């Protein structure tokens, strides 16, 4: 896979008072992701070409992809195809990369969402809203042992979800 085809579109950096190993565990273990990733459970074969799936609490397949880079506890990259929104399944998969830097008493976690095609800003909005919530919740979980209180994050996100579906309909499929 030619990773240079993927251009970074959304980057989020957070510093967490923990160890790189704890961050790696939290990113790759289903019992931990369900605590901070909107209740979603990750299933991942942590090796290059390994399968990766994210499941919603009710068993709906959320995201599907493959492990591209697996360098524990420093770097993890997976291809990422959104499955739970019908309009988005046909889009070329994107790439999500986690870089974990050990700075002594603190870890710098950098999440980069990269895309192979030019995308409408409306289609990037889901990730730009969601990643800060997910990664701040991960930080709270690792620093305090519990995630943040459950709050109604979707209360003002309904309109942007509709706009994202509408924009996704304009792209042709990539099958074949």
């Amino acid at each position, binding site marked *: 896979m030619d990773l240079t085809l993927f251009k970074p579109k959304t980057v989020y950096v957070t510093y967490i008072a923990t160890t790189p190993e704890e961050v790696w565990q939290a990113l790759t273990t289903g019992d931990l992701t369900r605590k901070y990733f909107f209740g979603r459970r990750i299933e991942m074969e942590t090796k290059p070409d390994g399968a990766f799936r994210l499941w919603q609490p009710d068993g709906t397949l959320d995201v599907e992809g493959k492990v591209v880079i697996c360098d524990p506890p420093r770097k993890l990259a997976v291809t990422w195809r959104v499955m739970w929104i019908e309009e988005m399944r046909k889009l070329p998969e994107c790439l999500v990369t986690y870089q974990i830097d050990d700075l002594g008493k*603190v870890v710098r976690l950098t999440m980069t969402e990269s895309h192979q095609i030019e995308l409408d800003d409306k289609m990037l909005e889901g990730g730009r809203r969601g990643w800060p919530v997910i990664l*701040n919740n991960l*930080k709270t979980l690792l620093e305090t042992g519990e995630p943040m209180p*459950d709050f109604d994050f979707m209360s003002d996100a309904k309109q942007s979800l509709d706009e994202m579906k509408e924009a996704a309909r304009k792209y042709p499929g990539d099958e074949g």
Partner: protein
Amino acid sequence: MQTPPKFVYVTLIATTPEKLWAALTDPKFTVQYWGGTSLESDWKPGSRIVFRWRDKIVHDDTILKSEPPRLLSYSFHPLQFEDEAIRAEQPSRVTFEIEEFTGKSAQQGPVVKLTVTHDEFPLESKIFPMICNGWPGILSSLKTLLETGRAIEFEW
């Protein structure tokens, strides 16, 4: 056409708008998460705000908007650099917006969304890349301080 650079960072913190406001405006808090920097002002629109670091004034700026505990904005003009070109760069602007989400259950406290927008940079700003590196560390440490009572101990 080139557009001037703009930095936006969103963080979510398990706290209240009032506690977050205090952490942004009380030097007792700022010294803990802002690399030892004390932010001093009466926090009224038009008032002076200074950043003090080891007894030196490293910013001398003006409060642009202040609506506790939801909105704060001030000019941003670092003075601590040797490089004359950096010191001569026009002041930029930083804005803090605070929004509260109530918890889904009555036993749990609220979650506060803090959006930091840093803009009004010149096209070829030398300061812009530095603030892009700086804010995530400062704001991560602010979150840790509010949620655990202790800021992050950075070693750099």
